[in-house]
């Protein structure tokens, strides 16, 4: 398709039952849709789980994704977010020999801090908008991060 591809965040409320996640991911792979990130967790005090899927596609593709998701029997609701608060977490492991106070200061600028220190490594955490998390990961490159884990985005409509 020639239409412009856009980044989109889709939230899906599903019955928390066996194999529901594979129904969702099968749908994406089977129909050629893209998943950038995906997070899942149960919704407290309910039989439902919430998935946050970051995807991309033209308006028509996003509309199809929404409709096809809704067609799955265990899907209760699908939100395609326009106006949202979006956050992502990252955990980063640094050698203890790096400048810890510099790292801590940078983390603070991105809603984070050092959360663990061991014999050889420290672990820092940040939680911010996905784009800012990417900026952060650029900024700390010179401190030789040994391992980086991103959580994938979660989002709520404003």
């Amino acid at each position, binding site marked *: 398709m020639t239409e412009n591809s856009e980044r989109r965040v889709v939230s899906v409320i*599903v*019955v928390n039952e*066996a*194999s529901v996640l*594979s*129904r969702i991911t*099968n749908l994406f792979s*089977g129909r050629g849709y893209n998943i950038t990130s995906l997070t899942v967790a149960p919704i407290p005090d309910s039989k439902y789980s919430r998935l946050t899927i970051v995807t991309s596609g033209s308006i*028509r593709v996003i*509309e*199809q994704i929404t*409709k*096809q998701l*809704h*067609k799955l*029997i*265990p*899907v*209760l609701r699908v939100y395609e977010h326009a106006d949202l608060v979006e956050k992502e977490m990252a955990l980063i492991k640094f050698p203890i020999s790096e400048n810890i106070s510099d790292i801590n200061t940078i983390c603070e600028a991105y809603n984070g801090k050092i959360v663990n220190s061991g014999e050889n490594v420290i672990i820092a955490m940040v939680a911010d908008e996905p784009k800012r998390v990417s900026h952060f990961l650029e900024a700390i490159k010179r401190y030789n991060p040994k391992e980086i884990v991103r959580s994938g985005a979660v989002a709520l409509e404003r």
Partner: protein
Amino acid sequence: MQISGAQMVIEAFIAEGVDTVFGYPGGAIMNVYDEIYKQDGFQHILNRHEQASIHAAEGYAKASGKVGVAMITSGPGFTNAVTGLADAYMDSVPLVVVSGQVPMSLIGTDGFQEIDAIGISRPCTKHNYLVTDAADLPRVLKEAFYIARSGRPGPVHVDIPKDVTAQIAEFDYDVALELETYKPHVKGNPRQIKKAMEAIAKAKRPLFYLGGGIINAKAAYEVRELVHKTGIPAVETLMARGVLSHDDDLLVDMLGMHGSYAANMAMSETDLVIGLGARFDDRVTGKLSEFAKNAGVIHVDIDPASISKLVNADYPIVGDIKNVVIDMLEQSDKIHSENYESWRETINNFAELHPLTFHEDTQRLKPQWVIKRVGELLGDSANISTDVGQHQMWSAQFYPFSRPNQWITSGGLGTMGFGFPAAIGVKAACPDKTSINFTGDGSILMNVQELMTAVEKKIPVINIILNNNFLGMVRQWQTLFYDKRHSETDLSVQPDFVKLSEAFGGVGYRVKTKEEFDAALKDAVEKNVVAFIEVVVERFENVMPMVPAGGSLFNMMLLEKKERK
């Protein structure tokens, strides 16, 4: 009452009014087959391959409008059935398919005849279940039937481990369904319907585009009323044959890749497409950017995902076709048939310019003649199944369909081997109608073992094999688009079809002339046993008109006129 999981399956089928189950036993499903042995609430038809069981259940469902039921075992039993599930999914056929699975303790251990059945059936079913506790079975089975037949129908697969079929639990089928996450729309939005009717009243060249969803919704007679009341001409998709009767003046034949010139031109010239239960399949639209280019689009469908999937709908209406058409009928007073007089004339001129026809210009019989002839001899008294290929397109083009559920074919998936087992299911559903299967010399061999099923159960399906010693449709494409390199499509080496049928206990005929064909068909109908009528037909006949894949609907290859007698 406290009963076993296997007994629950039987009780649920009986409660659902199932009268016929198609299937094949095996290790993991034996507990259920033991209960089938003990019951007399329904008949079981033993097919000779699991794929055939699913197609038979499809044929049953398509002819009867009820949910088709099939039962199979784990592992290879299930994998054999996958083609059938995919076929039913593509054509929205309501099925409940129960499969056995290895016992719970063996799941995940690569046990004997173990396969991740629900993992495989997920993309080719409307929904599926792995039942891990017999206490869930009544709910699951009830949901399965409900999901299969409601909304946009489709196959539902229920996988039951062997120990669960032996487990004893409480059975109460009289419970209300609680499906919070599944609520199909049934009523169309009244404001959208009103807007659509206003658009129709304004249109100069509106065209009904009728799809198989009308047959699923059991709305054909309401649609006939709407078409006649408005005087708006209609084209049908492959799956919609029989919605309008063949002799209806407002029917402009089938459209699409092998649609008639008039139907494809009408679709290209219309200013308002009124799509009812059709899904703008690529075999219908041809090149999308040129499809009904200057037309607005009304699209009525039960499945929101079908609307604006390929062609943008200006008037999307989600709902059950029957309800929506009844609402449309109530608001149709402002639509005046006489306004479309010149439009109907235009279409009639298209039809006169290039009518759907064929030339009887060779020594051999033409396949189209055979189909027309069966129509003349049997007409409304036969249900017509087909396999897939040239014979299927000719059947769609030339059989005089007169009612919904008369036409049973594999549209979306295009499954060779569908026809014979489907025709067995059709006969089981409608014993008072002759069950014809138009097939080819390629397709028939893909489920030929069903001769045994038909003979054993005395199901007199008449298979008319249009034998051109070719895999005809592929040969046609090779002739037209691959410079006549007929790669692996020459089927000159063949069985003796007469002896083949006789070997199983059926009857067989090999005919080369019109007289021989008439006599064979008459004899087969009278004998009332399974029959093969092998008709030796012109080898190089092509299905025409033809829109080359990806081409525009109005750019058709046509039957050469100069040859016409």
